[in-house]
């Protein structure tokens, strides 16, 4: 699979549930298998779909992140950041 998806709010909720999670009444995403809240791979905080609208689920054992700083940290860890030399 080589396609990243950008979903509307409703579709994102639907897909999260299809992927084996449920969303509790406060917006926290729960893993149906463990019945535990899903946590961000980087900040280790719970993911709340009502508060963390920047969430992304990244391939590789479903890594959850909350925002672009976490995405940047993840890309840095994976040595996947694309850097171009700036001419001064």
């Amino acid at each position: 699979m080589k396609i990243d998806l950008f979903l509307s709010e409703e579709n994102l909720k639907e897909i999260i549930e299809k992927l084996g999670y449920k969303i509790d009444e406060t917006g926290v995403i729960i893993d149906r298998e463990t019945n535990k809240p899903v946590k961000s791979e980087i900040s280790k905080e719970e993911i709340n779909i009502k508060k963390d609208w920047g969430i992304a689920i990244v391939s590789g054992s479903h890594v959850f992140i909350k925002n672009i700083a976490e995405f940047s940290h993840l890309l840095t860890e994976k040595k996947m950041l694309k850097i171009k030399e700036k001419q001064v």
Partner: protein
Amino acid sequence: MFPISFSFEITKAIEFLSNFVEKFGKNEIIEIEEKELYNLSEVYSVFKKYREERVVKENPELKEAFEKMENFFREYIPGWDRERKSYILMRKSSTTFQNIISDFLKFKKEKSKELTFISSLDTGIEYEEFKEKPTEIEKDIVEAVSKLPGDIRTKYFSLVTLSSRIEQLYLEGRIEKAENIRNSIKSLYGEFGLRFSNLYQRGYLKTFMRLLKKEEPKNIVEKIKSFFDEAEFVFFIHKNMSISELEEIERKLEMALKNLNEYVALHSLGGATRIAREIIIKIRKRIPSEIMNQYTTIKKDEKTEYKIRINDKIMQIRDFSYIWYKNKRGRRMYRFFEGLM
């Protein structure tokens, strides 16, 4: 509150979406331009922002228009296809979409070497841009950060990249996106991260880091720590700061000057310059001239290369900064601000 030309804009948005539906024909998936995707994201932001407004629910034309938008965003899914190297739009009912979801379900159990993600329409595009478009960073800075030990290296590399991206977005006039990044920095890296980003964008940290490439790796962490100590009294005003945050800055600024700290500065950009001017007026009244006379004072009140878009017009953002420095150390910090080594 709706924008003045709201109805007109909505008509344009519906036309824009209808064109996509027409373009699809019987296809399951079509390629779209980057600009089209950005416009799609903007239409989605408007839809999200106003769909619950009373006027939308009560005005039959607006109600119909919003229902059309809702249907569109339910049925069509944008994405980035790494093989085609193109943005795409696909039907939710397509086999391609169903296969992506099946594959993603498998990834819960097995690690994938490729990085693919699912996110919301507005933020996902920012992630994609971040992932696919290289961030421009000076070679000297990359070399310096690369010398740092493991954990710190990841954090600093990420912060340098995010700060450079913020600067780029300011130069392009995409302030809202830049502020999203700044908020996420605060959320993940806390006040330190925010301070890092501000000092970097204002030139201090960028100039200082260029010097670090000559340092032994074991000294770099300590040097950075000393730099942050020396920059303790560099303050940044943001237009969204609360009254108590502004009062705290005002109090610290006054104390720093009364204590004759070697480098004291207040920086502001755009909408925050008005607040910073008010603080300076109050501070100048409160600090005795015998203290002020011990400092070299620099006032900056000028247009920057940063831009802001207001109603399709691009305007340059203004910088208002006040700097007081004394002695060799104060002068050294001022030179960092000016980008001089």
